[in-house]
């Protein structure tokens, strides 16, 4: 059996991972078609129905200005998935090129580049993100950018380690002997062989980015009004007087964030276990 099929089989044999995949797929579907399922628009304000509990007319109830929570949550799913996707893509781009360069050249270049990563590791990343947000200003695009600019460290470390290992293999030596340039060797020969760890790191970056966006939005530094994300919705619903009278305001966004994080974590863990059988059952 080819290694690819072996990995797929191991992954499918893991119910939690498959469940996570299903939830992620449903989430993507929900983000795509959710807003059009409800008769209410994103910015429809119904002043006769404010902070109302879930009903047949408003499936998830309404918020404090009479907007339909179902649509808001669906739009929030869009925001979260966008953040997860694009922030991890930016981090992929930076992390892979940084790590590959460091690993390929080795020696002093490698030492200096990894020292920089070590230093960045020593500083709480969210502080850097917040500092970046102060400069960039709030808004979804800036959140994406700030997150992508910060969350590439794990990727860089992992890719560097892999490149360092593969650099001395026979097929790379052969490619070198044939006079293939280093960029081409990296892209065509080395990176395809490190795909596994890259994908795992990527899947684990996604929930991280989603979490940080909702965190930033919760404290008011993420997306800004009139746009909403799960973070801003959760924060709006978490006011004490609302918790007493209309807990659904906090409940739905909170459940959405937790469920999404859980699903991505399950997928990431499952992928890692499938790619590295020695690791099965002991994730760290």
């Amino acid at each position, binding site marked *: 059996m080819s290694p690819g099929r072996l990995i797929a089989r191991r992954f499918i044999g893991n119910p*939690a991972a498959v469940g996570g995949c299903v939830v992620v797929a449903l989430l993507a579907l929900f983000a795509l078609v959710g807003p059009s399922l409800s008769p209410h628009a994103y910015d429809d304000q119904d002043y006769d129905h404010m902070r109302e509990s879930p009903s047949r007319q408003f499936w998830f109830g309404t918020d404090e200005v009479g907007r339909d929570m179902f649509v808001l949550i669906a739009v929030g799913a869009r925001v979260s998935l966008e953040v997860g996707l694009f922030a991890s893509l930016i981090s992929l781009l930076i992390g892979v090129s940084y790590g590959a360069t460091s690993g390929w050249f080795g020696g002093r270049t490698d030492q200096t580049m990894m020292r920089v990563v070590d*230093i960045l590791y*020593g*500083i*709480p*990343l*969210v*502080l850097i993100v*917040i*500092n*970046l*947000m*102060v*400069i960039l200003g709030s808004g979804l695009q800036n959140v994406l950018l700030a997150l992508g600019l910060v969350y590439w460290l794990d990727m860089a470390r992992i890719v560097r380690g892999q490149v360092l290992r593969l650099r001395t293999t026979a097929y790379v030596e052969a490619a070198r002997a044939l006079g293939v340039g280093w960029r081409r060797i990296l892209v065509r020969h080395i990176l395809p062989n490190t795909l596994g760890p890259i994908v795992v790191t990527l899947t684990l970056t996604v*929930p991280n980015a989603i*979490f940080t966006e*909702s*965190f930033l939005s*919760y*404290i*008011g*530094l993420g997306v800004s009004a009139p746009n909403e994300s799960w973070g801003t919705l*959760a*924060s709006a619903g*978490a006011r*004490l007087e609302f*918790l*007493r009278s209309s*807990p659904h305001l*906090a409940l739905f966004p*909170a459940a959405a*964030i*937790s469920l999404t*994080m*859980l699903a991505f*974590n*399950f997928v990431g*863990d499952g992928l890692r276990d499938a790619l590295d059988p020695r690791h099965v*059952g*002991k*994730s*760290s």
Partner: protein
Amino acid sequence: MLQFVLKRLLTSLVVIWIVVTTTFVLMKLCPGGPFDRERGLPEAIEKNISARYGLDKPVWRQYGSYVGSLLRGDLGLSYHYQGQSIGGMIADKFPRSATIGLLSILLSIGVGVPAGVFSSVRQHRWGDRLTMLITIVGVSVPSFILATLLQYVAAVRWKVFNAAGFAGWRDAILPALALSVYSLAFITRLTRSSFLDVLHDEWVRTAYAKGLAPLRVLVGHVLRNAILPVVTYLGPLTAGVLTGSLVVEKIFSIPGLGGFFVTSVFNRDYPLIMGVTIFYSILLVLLNLFVDVAYVWLDPRISFEGGETS
């Protein structure tokens, strides 16, 4: 050993210098002056304000004087809370945050390590499976959601704790709980996996074969070898608690440094943002230094001269 500590101390200083320089540059890149809101002031007054905060000098001189006063332990003056020293404000707010933070770190380690050991000893049985399930929920549910939930259940519904404010140590319990869940779950998983790595080593079997009590083998032999990853995690753990405090303190209306930092971001109080960032970074760099030294001290395989602890 001394040489190793000195070397690490030196790198820590370099790291702190880089943090200071970077945050300084970042703050200078911010669009708009800090007193833009007060436009329309007579020119003389604006000039006076600029002079008071040293903004009339060229940037490199500003940097020089900032680093200079930093070396004397002076973080400068706040823009928003006019004329108040940032060092003083940090000294005022930090103890509350530290109480909550320490409590949550103790909780994470005190519960997480035993839970991980339990899980590894019972590998593949229901106790282990249940623990793993709970921990993956634990690493997935954000602290701000837990904080809201705890506030609602324990304070609003049951009225066992105060919902907001910080009057005594009792008020530290709910925020500490909310802060510790992620790291507690993470430490449990970490401990479990590193115990599993060691548990099947031959020398452990030897220890059992000699007739040592299971608990003695675990605590006396396995723990010392398996605890290293947990020690390394102390740095990220503290960083996580620190980050979480930004939002948890806001939820529980605790007048600590975390909530204060968030407010200062909204006030665009650049010196304060910079000061708190630097303060936090120094805290973490020192902690990481301590962790590295502890690591070398705990792990007999690492030589003191090497300096590489990865």
